[in-house]
């Protein structure tokens, strides 16, 4: 071979390589999420599996996660500062603070991507569709959060009562729990029928519709839009809560309870009924209850949605926007690849990784393809989505939790809340403070329901009137 031929051959190989290289080039996507940290080996292993799955699907993507402090408040603070400093990853998980970014055009409209997506459009829950129509910047594929009440099945059996179907039957159940010595400490009358934490959101989940609180905005007798918080339906509901608290059936210390205190009261028998915020959480409660009572085969019973003077159903779901979720930066040079990552996570392959954990650690697959979970599955949690169309190879939820999920699916009602313009931020904050404060005072007995009008006046003065005027321009 002459030197000339050698040079020609070398040049040809180099050109061929150069032409192939772009097609095989790996794209780097930066992703920041509260639940994905380089310091967590499980997170990194999941990312590796996702990258492998994406490659098999034809996307050679290197996902680089950005570490931010854990804990919701610290994450939100750190994320805001990071974005403000101009460091904007391709995929951003928000848990608040997104609206400001969207207003400035930093977040990409996801609807065109979803429209032509391979997996996501089939994986959405009904409320996701509504929320994306109103606010197309965040994607959070999970069933709506609808807390539902649970009780120890053995306690319900001991009481000889059927699950309550009406508001009155709920009160009777709480009274029976309170009066009986179900925890066996020898002192009847010291068990709470129901406990909660922080505020009344959990209770509202099943009692709103029962008392006629059908949504955030309701029409009054004159046909004008008013916030449901200042309606007679709301007053009737708060009266019910206050009566329960006064009789010692509902925990007056709910305002100072943290979630772990609430759980502890349930596990130790100080309270008979608690609300689980999601089907998965109900299963966690069941597991912790069994841990607290070794040797006893305790199961939890899901209590039904009660009917009341105003109707029956789960509280209307706010579909104005996702309160958290994944966004794609409009400044990203790899928007298609970033969306490909999200789309993959909504696919069967992506969900298998995200929901089932690692083969040999969280689950085992036998030769026939049957999947069995190990004890480690209780430590696993999805980092991305809970797709509506994904069916686990083996049931992930207990029958109680599955019943809770079915209830959520069957009772979805969209709320008429909408996104507030930035100018109304102070009014929204002020009215929220006034409402929360008065409700807690009514329930703990610091204020009497006779002062309801005083609350309404204060609420309206704090911005309620201005907000209602704006609502009238938005709602039809």
């Amino acid at each position: 071979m002459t030197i000339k031929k050698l040079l020609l051959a070398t040049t040809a190989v180099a050109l061929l390589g150069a032409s192939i290289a772009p097609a095989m080039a790996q794209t780097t996507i930066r992703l920041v999420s509260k639940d994905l940290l380089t310091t967590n080996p499980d997170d990194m292993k999941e990312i590796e599996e996702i990258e492998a799955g994406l490659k098999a699907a034809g996307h050679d993507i290197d996902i680089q996660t950005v570490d931010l402090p854990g804990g919701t408040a610290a994450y939100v603070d750190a994320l805001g500062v990071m974005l403000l400093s101009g460091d904007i990853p391709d995929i951003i998980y928000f848990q608040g603070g997104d609206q400001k970014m969207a207003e400035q055009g930093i977040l990409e409209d996801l609807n065109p991507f979803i429209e032509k997506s391979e997996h996501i459009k089939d994986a959405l829950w009904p409320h996701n569709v509504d929320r994306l129509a109103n606010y197309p910047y965040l994607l959070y594929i999970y069933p709506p959060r609808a807390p539902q009440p649970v009780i120890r099945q053995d306690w319900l059996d001991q009481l000889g009562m059927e699950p309550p179907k009406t508001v009155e039957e709920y009160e009777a159940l709480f009274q029976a729990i309170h009066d009986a010595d179900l925890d066996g400490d020898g002192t009847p009358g010291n068990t709470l029928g129901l406990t909660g934490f922080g505020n009344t959101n959990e209770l509202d989940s099943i009692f709103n519709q029962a008392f006629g609180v059908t949504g955030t905005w309701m029409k009054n007798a004159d046909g004008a839009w008013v916030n449901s918080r200042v309606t007679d339906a709301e007053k009737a509901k708060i009266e019910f809560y206050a009566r329960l608290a006064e009789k010692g059936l509902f925990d007056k210390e709910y305002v100072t309870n943290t979630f772990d205190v609430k759980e502890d009261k349930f596990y130790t028998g100080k309270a008979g009924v608690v609300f689980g915020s999601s089907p998965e959480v109900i299963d966690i409660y069941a597991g912790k209850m069994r841990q607290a009572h070794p040797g006893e085969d305790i199961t939890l019973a899901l209590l039904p949605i009660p009917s009341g003077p105003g109707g029956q159903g789960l509280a209307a779901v706010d579909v104005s926007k996702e309160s958290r979720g994944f966004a794609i930066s409009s400044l990203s040079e790899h928007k298609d690849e970033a969306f490909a990552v999200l789309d993959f996570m909504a696919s069967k392959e992506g969900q298998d990784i995200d929901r089932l954990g690692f083969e040999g650690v969280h689950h085992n697959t036998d030769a026939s393809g049957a999947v069995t979970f190990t004890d480690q599955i209780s430590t696993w949690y999805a980092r991305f989505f809970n797709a509506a169309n994904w069916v686990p190879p083996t049931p992930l939820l207990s029958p109680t939790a599955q019943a809770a999920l079915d209830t959520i699916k069957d009772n979805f009602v969209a709320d008429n809340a909408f996104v507030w313009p930035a100018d109304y931020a102070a009014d929204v904050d002020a009215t929220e403070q006034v409402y929360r404060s008065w409700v807690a005072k009514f329930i703990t007995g610091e204020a009497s329901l006779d002062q309801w009008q005083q609350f309404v006046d204060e609420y309206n003065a704090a911005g309620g009137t201005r907000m209602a005027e704006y609502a009238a321009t938005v709602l039809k």
Partner: protein
Amino acid sequence: MVAGDGQKIAAVTSDGNVPAVGERVRSSGNIPLSSTTSLGAKVRQWWPYYAMMAPGLLFFFIWHYVPIWEAKMAFEQVRIIPPNIWVGLKNFQQLFSSPIFYQVLANTLIISGMKILFVFPVPIIVALLLNEIRSGKLRGFVQSAIYLPHFLSWVVIAGVFIALLSPTDGAVNQIQNAFGFPSVNYMTNTGTIRWVLVISEIWRSAGWDSLLYLAAIFAIDPQLYEAAEMDGANRWQKIWHVTIPGIVPTIATLFILNMGMFLSADLNQVINMQNDVNASTIDILDTYVYRLGLSTGEYALATAAGLFKAVIGMILVVSSHLVSKRLTGKGLW
């Protein structure tokens, strides 16, 4: 220590002062009253001291002076993609026009006032009492015991107080019940929650804050106590006529510095003690700004509130300095 000209620096001068950095020692070993040496020569001569001081200066410059320029954000609409847009006083108008701003401001003033009135004197009293303990071992034990709460976070302290004050099984209410008094839910009672803030602040900080006063007490010339004893002064008279006057400059300085933080009523404490019932009573500027500004990404609004607090703080520092100068002859400068 050997000075540049080879003369050994006396540990202290005849009037008890330590020579200042940069002062040249005369051949006699005495400290000169003034120096005409150029700055460059001073730096060359005393560079180890300047080198030691540099990190501190750098820290203050970067973290305390550079951000002052960024306070202009209070007058801007912050853009992720620059440039920011100048909006004048719009952020301040939004802040002051909030329906609950004046209630929040009133809460801040009340809580800060209560803390100045009831929390500020406690470390002074603690230091005076500690100084009276004659047994070194006992004093060491008491000091360690009362310093410890300083190292606990407000999350933990809030948990402790919520448990202690629980109306059902809290120790405080059980003691009350034993004496025939009814239970009170101190954490959800709008009349008591501010006192919970004051008492928990005392519990957490009194021991630690007494350190400065204790150090000031130890610096008082023992001859003054001996002279008082010779004059027949008892313990109380020695405290009143020797110890307290001896620490007045420290008290004045710390009081003035505390006034500068008057509108900062401790975000961490309040946010951990806050609940739906007491929110209207202890919602302070910091919690309000955190809620409305930081958690929603309204950084300009948060900066406007911060600037408002800083201006008020500066006014309070300068006025308390002037008052202190007039009353005690001591101030910050």
